[in-house]
């Protein structure tokens, strides 16, 4: 059997393919994105990016109702968007199989919160499997599909960033030949969830839960490893490996299914060890259920509630031992936060917004980074699509005080995800806010995924791309303009015009992401600062562009001539990083910045 180094995400895609699933829908979001990208490359599969997770879920539900083995893929907060159909498909089940991947993000590596989606499994009465590494990720997808078919239920597969983005060795299996079980079948009593039918299904759900509780007792991936009976640890997912790393000789109850739990197995394990721990990141999800069985257990009393764990955290919590504190030099280091790329089309737009004394309701995307110094051009970020509704609400609440002072900004992919309905609301309810769509022609933050305006599908086929201007016009907004954010003067004027007009306005700030190769992003000659002309005003520094640095006179050699008593240094541009976008040249009042070859010497 071939062995391959695979990420958890690649292994989930492989597992789905191996067990005969040929249908998947999702919306990109770290740490889940690579699952769909990997699945889409297998032969004979259908895989699509939907505009958002709710649509992806409904697409997968439709496929599963038709009898397919369907996969829906999203990050943890995506499940919030998809929650509405999920709560009710739990009642109906499907004729095929439905597996929902939720990729959680403990430590908020790339998210706005660290919600623990295991709670959804209990809330929705949907069983959940949780793999601890890539091999299990692959194996559990097959098990999830089997459970879905056997119990007529959707099944969650929960990953975390550490499992999704770690790589480990996976033994590949030959893919099963896909079986076509699709057909049109009619069963209104099961699938029309009006009260009279849903009440009956509600009872079926409870029967199913009891059967699943029994199944959990014999589920192959719930296993006891009895070694030293002194300490027993109940755990699931990646924390199992952290613990095995530092305490290889303890006893373990490793749960592959985190909901429902195997009560009898837990009782037996508890009776075979003297001191019992539940080891789990985030919420005391398993711990509370173990306590409800009347079993004494230590969990969040010693383990943190927040952030992901590592072997050191597990070791300290259980043994109380901290590794010897090394004698290391105390050096405060400048932080290295992520930053907009050199040549990023968002930079000019947010530079201007940050200097206009307007409130900028922001959204989810690369541009969210512009809340930081020196741009400071974004003032809130809650969830996908929130900017538009929030800008409208703020503008209404402020009334006259807010006139011309409230902006909502949203990326193109985020706008199509969940910005259309709030914009429709702005037209409907006579809003005065200005909405700026930062259209970089792709889903940039997660790595250039297609969306309904790019003209291509996930599997690379050409398709209709929605025309944003016409779409916005059709919502009832007449004041729509497009501007190139590389042109600071035109962009400033367009923002001012939009703020001054009464009624809703939309400004589309359009230029391809500088990393998006297909659109051949602009690459000009690098710019250079002439130190003899630079007056040290630091305007260009205010762009926060990575190639532009401030050189104090004390660091420069030879020291250029001072143009004023107060001048403390000059700007400098790293030619290897500069893409030649020219924003700094537009800001420079002393004419010190020019394309390289046009400066003598």
């Amino acid at each position, binding site marked *: 059997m071939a062995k391959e180094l695979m990420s958890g995400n690649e292994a989930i895609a492989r597992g789905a393919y191996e067990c005969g699933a040929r249908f998947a829908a999702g919306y990109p979001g770290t740490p889940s994105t690579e699952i769909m990208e990997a699945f889409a490359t297998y032969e004979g599969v259908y895989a699509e990016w939907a505009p958002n997770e709710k649509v992806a879920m409904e697409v997968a539900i439709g496929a599963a109702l038709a009898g397919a083995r369907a996969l829906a893929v999203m990050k943890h907060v995506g499940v919030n968007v998809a929650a509405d159909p999920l709560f009710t498909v739990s009642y109906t089940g499907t004729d095929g199989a439905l597996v929902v991947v939720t990729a959680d993000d403990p430590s908020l*590596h790339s998210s706005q919160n660290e919600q623990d989606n295991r709670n959804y499994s209990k809330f929705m009465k949907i069983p959940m499997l949780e793999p601890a590494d890539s091999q299990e990720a692959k194996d559990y997808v097959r098990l999830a599909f089997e459970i879905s078919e056997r119990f007529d239920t959707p099944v969650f597969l929960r990953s975390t960033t*550490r499992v999704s*983005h770690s*790589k480990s060795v996976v033994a590949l299996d030959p893919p099963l030949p896909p079986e076509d079980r699709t057909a049109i079948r009619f069963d209104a009593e099961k699938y029309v969830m009006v009260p009279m039918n849903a009440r009956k299904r509600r009872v079926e759900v409870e029967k199913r839960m009891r059967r699943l509780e029994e199944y959990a007792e014999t589920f192959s991936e719930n296993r006891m490893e009895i070694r030293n009976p002194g300490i027993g640890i109940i755990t699931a997912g990646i924390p199992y490996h952290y613990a095995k790393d530092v305490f290889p000789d303890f006893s373990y109850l490793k749960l592959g299914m985190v909901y429902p739990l195997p009560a009898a197995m837990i009782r037996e394990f508890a009776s075979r060890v003297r001191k019992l721990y539940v080891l789990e990141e985030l919420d005391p999800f398993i711990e509370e259920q173990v306590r409800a069985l009347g079993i004494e257990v230590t969990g969040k009393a010693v383990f943190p509630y927040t952030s992901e764990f590592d*072997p*050191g955290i597990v070791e300290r919590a259980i043994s109380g031992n901290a590794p*010897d504190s090394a004698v290391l030099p105390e050096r405060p*280091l400048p932080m290295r936060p992520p930053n907009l790329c050199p040549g990023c089309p968002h930079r000019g737009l947010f530079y201007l917004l940050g200097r206009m004394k307007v409130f900028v309701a922001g959204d989810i995307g690369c541009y969210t980074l512009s809340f930081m110094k020196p741009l400071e051009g974004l003032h809130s970020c809650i969830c996908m699509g929130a900017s538009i509704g929030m800008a409208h609400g703020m503008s209404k609440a402020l009334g006259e005080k807010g006139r011309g002072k409230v902006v909502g900004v949203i990326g193109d992919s985020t706008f199509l995800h969940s910005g259309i309905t709030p914009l429709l609301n702005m037209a409907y309810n006579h809003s005065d806010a200005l909405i700026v769509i930062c259209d970089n022609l792709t889903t940039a933050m997660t790595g250039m995924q297609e969306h309904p305006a790019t003209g291509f599908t996930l599997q690379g086929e050409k398709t209709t791309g929605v025309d944003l201007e016409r779409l916005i016009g059709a919502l009832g907004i007449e004041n729509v303009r497009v501007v190139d954010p590389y042109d600071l003067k035109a962009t400033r004027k367009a923002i001012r015009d939009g703020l001054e007009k009464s009624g809703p306005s939309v400004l589309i700030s359009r230029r391809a992401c500088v990393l998006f190769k297909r659109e051949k992003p602009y690459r000009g000659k690098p710019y250079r600062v002439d130190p003899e002309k630079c007056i040290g005003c*630091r305007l260009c520094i205010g762009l926060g562009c990575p190639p532009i*640095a401030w050189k104090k006179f004390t660091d420069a050699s030879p020291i250029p001539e001072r143009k004023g008593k107060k001048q403390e240094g000059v700007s400098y541009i790293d030619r290897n990083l500069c893409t030649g976008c020219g924003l700094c040249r537009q800001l420079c009042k002393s004419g010190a910045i020019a394309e390289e070859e046009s400066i003598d010497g």
Partner: protein
Amino acid sequence: MGDTRGILIAGVGGQGILLASDILCRVFMAAGLDVKKSEVHGMAQRGGCVTSHVRYGGKVHSPISRKRDVDILVSFEKMDTLRYLDFLKPEATILINTEELYPPAVNLGDAEYPKDAVETARLSFQKVKSIDATNLASRAGNVRAVNTVLLGALSACLPIPLETWEEVIRKSFPAGILPANLEAFRMGRVA
């Protein structure tokens, strides 16, 4: 624990750290060892800190090392070396690329770039080697091959035959940039 050993590769988004750690994992696999690696993506191209843990041995459990448990630190950026010293065993080896990439606060003039990272690391660790990987990469014919230069330097610290490394590297780069990367690897190995 047990026979598991840990390597930490650290630097700045865009420096080729993830490819380097992929190659390293494949080398360990080719040498018949179990291996796991872990990193966090998402911000990788946006100039933020990027770290990749690689752990190898007979049977590896955790894909990340705890503090004071890493055997080798490969630091792709000079100053950033100092961020990860608390992950290292006292007898750890440190390989430092002497390239300086200024974070925003330094560019803004709000903070000083600490120039003495190599000297500071030497105060607490015996085996510290600094490498001008950017210079070596451009001499090898591809300025972006900094990651391959540093893999070469790392290879000199590990008991794995040169042929295994070169075989994996041959499979990891397209033909056009392979010769420069093989040369970069060899230069790093003897640096």
